[in-house]
């Protein structure tokens, strides 16, 4: 097949590119202390939180954006971004779905997330973040009975200040990196999950993020804590409308697992990637880190990344507890002019810690993708083990795939295994399938899904189906 046809095949339209016409309250673009105070005030935050934000802001002013990633984009004008946008509605949060603006619910329907039905059918509790505020959290009551707290981070700051003070910023410190500092100053919403000792969360928890208003950034902040022996599975999904200008998304996610706790965090990210010429699209600069603080704790990141113009994201695990386990399963698909620099960091500190990395990168069109992974074994991490598998699949001949594995081994008892492959989607494979009567499009999706299987099987069942569907949409072409 000619590469031109191949390119056509992988071209697609962004299906979530609608704008919801909702009156919203948006602050003018620009960032200074008064904007931060405005946000903090809007959220009804206590004084200490505002101080925390202002401190982060001053930290951020002293920092410079990272330049080491294999990404090419013009400098971001942080004064051109609006840092707060909320759908206008009565001051009080809706107490039930009936009180939620029907247009918002319609938006979620379009995204294929009918909150009520979906939540009810699947037993999924959904926290939906629309621009900067959390719209509704379903199933709050049932979770409450189990002792699980699942609410927006703003609510948590008001209602559970002790937990916030104890954990916020302890995994990703304010000064960790440029984007984390910015997020700490201006974060507007996100989810908070607390699972107490010995409790297994009775349902999957889920958040959907959507950027709707123009010229806004989305800075959500998520904090998940599992006490001793607690378990939770959490999924986030993301979309944004099509816009010509770039939008910034700079989130911070912090996970804390105490002794014997298990946190499974899955992401299906489908932010608008920009058009085929690279115009528009989300800049996705995200810091995600899990802290296996307790012995035998386990944190597992699974991500399916198909969107965003620029992705800069390295979900990581700090393996502090003895015999703790960190896992990273990733499928990243780039198409058009998308650029992604993504991977993970596994920091082995405790004895007998283990980490497992499976990364599958699929590049199509003129996109560029890099896997960047660090495995660091500290001097006290006796008997630590890592296994890394990192595979790239190229579709067409105008895309790029790169692998940057870093290893810092400070301990002779460690075992490190690294496997990497790069392959072109075989014209032979395509021909084989087609010569059996299978259409080109179906053949591509079959081969790609096969390539991603190791990761998809890590996703919660119903989301695995969703991820497969999303992948098919992503690689759906204009054939015929």
């Amino acid at each position, binding site marked *: 097949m000619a590469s031109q046809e191949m390119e056509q095949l992988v071209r697609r339209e962004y299906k979530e590119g609608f704008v919801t016409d909702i009156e919203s309250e948006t602050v003018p673009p620009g960032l200074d202390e008064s904007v931060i105070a405005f946000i903090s005030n809007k959220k009804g935050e206590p004084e200490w939180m505002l101080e925390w934000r202002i401190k982060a802001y001053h930290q951020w002013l002293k920092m410079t954006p990272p330049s080491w990633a294999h990404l090419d984009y013009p400098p971001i004008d942080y004064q051109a971004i609006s840092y707060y946008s909320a759908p206008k509605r009565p001051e009080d949060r809706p107490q039930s779905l009936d009180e939620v603006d029907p247009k918002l619910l319609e938006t979620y329907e379009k995204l294929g997330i009918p909150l009520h039905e979906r939540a009810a059918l699947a037993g999924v509790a959904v926290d939906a973040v629309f621009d900067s505020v959390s719209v509704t959290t379903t199933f709050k009551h049932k979770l409450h009975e189990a002792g699980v707290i699942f609410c927006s981070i703003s609510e948590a700051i008001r209602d559970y200040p002790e937990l916030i003070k104890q954990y916020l910023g302890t995994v990703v410190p304010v000064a960790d990196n440029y984007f984390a500092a910015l997020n700490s100053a201006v974060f507007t919403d996100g989810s908070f999950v607390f699972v107490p000792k010995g409790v297994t969360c009775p349902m999957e928890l889920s958040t959907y993020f959507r950027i709707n208003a123009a010229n806004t950034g989305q800075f959500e902040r998520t904090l998940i804590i599992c006490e001793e022996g607690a378990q939770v599975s959490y999924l986030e999904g993301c979309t944004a409308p099509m816009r010509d200008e770039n939008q910034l998304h700079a989130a911070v996610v912090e996970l804390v697992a105490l002794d014997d706790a298990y946190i499974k965090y899955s992401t299906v990210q489908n932010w608008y990637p920009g058009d085929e010429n690279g115009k528009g699209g989300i800049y996705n600069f995200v810091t995600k880190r899990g802290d296996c603080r307790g012995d035998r704790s386990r944190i597992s990141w699974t991500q399916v990344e198909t969107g965003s113009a620029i992705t800069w994201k390295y979900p990581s695990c700090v393996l502090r507890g003895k015999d703790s386990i960190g896992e990273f399963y990733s499928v990243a698909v780039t198409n058009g002019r998308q650029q992604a620099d993504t991977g993970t960091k596994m920091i082995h500190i405790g004895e007998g810690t283990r980490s497992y990395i499976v990364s599958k990168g699929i590049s199509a069109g003129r996109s560029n993708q890099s896997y960047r992974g660090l495995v660091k074994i500290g001097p006290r991490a006796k008997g630590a083990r890592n296994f890394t598998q990192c595979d790239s699949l190229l579709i067409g001949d105008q895309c790029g795939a790169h692998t940057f594995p870093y290893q810092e081994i400070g301990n002779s008892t460690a075992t490190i295994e690294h496997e990497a492959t790069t392959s072109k989607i075989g014209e032979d*494979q395509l021909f084989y399938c087609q010569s059996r009567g299978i259409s080109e499009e179906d053949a591509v999706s079959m081969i790609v899904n096969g390539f991603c299987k190791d990761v998809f099987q890590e996703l919660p069942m119903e989301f695995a189906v969703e991820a497969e569907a999303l992948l098919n949409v992503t690689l759906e072409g204009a054939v015929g």
Partner: protein
Amino acid sequence: MLEVKDLYVKVEGKEILKGLTLTINAGEVHAIMGPNGAGKSTLSAVIAGKEGYEVTSGSVTFEGRDVLEMEIEERAQAGLLLGFQYPVEIPGVKNIYLLKAALNAQRQARGEGEMPAPEFLKLVKERLAQMKMDASFLQRAVNEGFSGGEKKRNEILQMLVLQPKLAMLDEIDSGLDIDAMRVVADGVNSLRGEERGILLVTHYQRLLDYIVPDRVHVLVDGRIAKSGDAELARELESRGYDWVVEETAA
């Protein structure tokens, strides 16, 4: 059912087929033989639609349709199926999934609905048994880690499930031991029927002891130099190809 007329084909600028003409009727088994580099595999690849083969003149029609104008998958849906000499591996895609997708794609193209799952499973299990293959084959990724013999059996398994009108088998005997050869040949023989044509491409006469062809063609330098019945194959076995080559040159 298949008519190839005066076919000229270039591969990477080099002329491989130079005026090949061949007619296969329903119910017939044809064998294409010939020395290495004569263009044997090129013929079946062109008919199946493989990229990189440039047809400079001539025609290929199947049941009256212009094959060269059809998409690859349309050719398969029309009943033209190629069994590969070197079947490719597709990691992560289960064999049973490929079989099901292929069968249903072909059925849908014919305006039939998808085959119900129980019926499909029954069909596949019968065919597996026929090919002396274990059910675990279905759960393995397509051709991944298969031995040479397993790959060839798998190709015939697909033929048995998909039931093409014209089965083209490219060097299906290469790399097979005698037992595997028997199983493969039995599979092919079971495909023989009044409605079906079979085109065997082979270098060795050995296969033709098990699958006795109606017609044998010797391909030399891009065209059919000599045709005959099964007896011709035996003659080639004892005398080699040189005499045909010399006869052609004369």
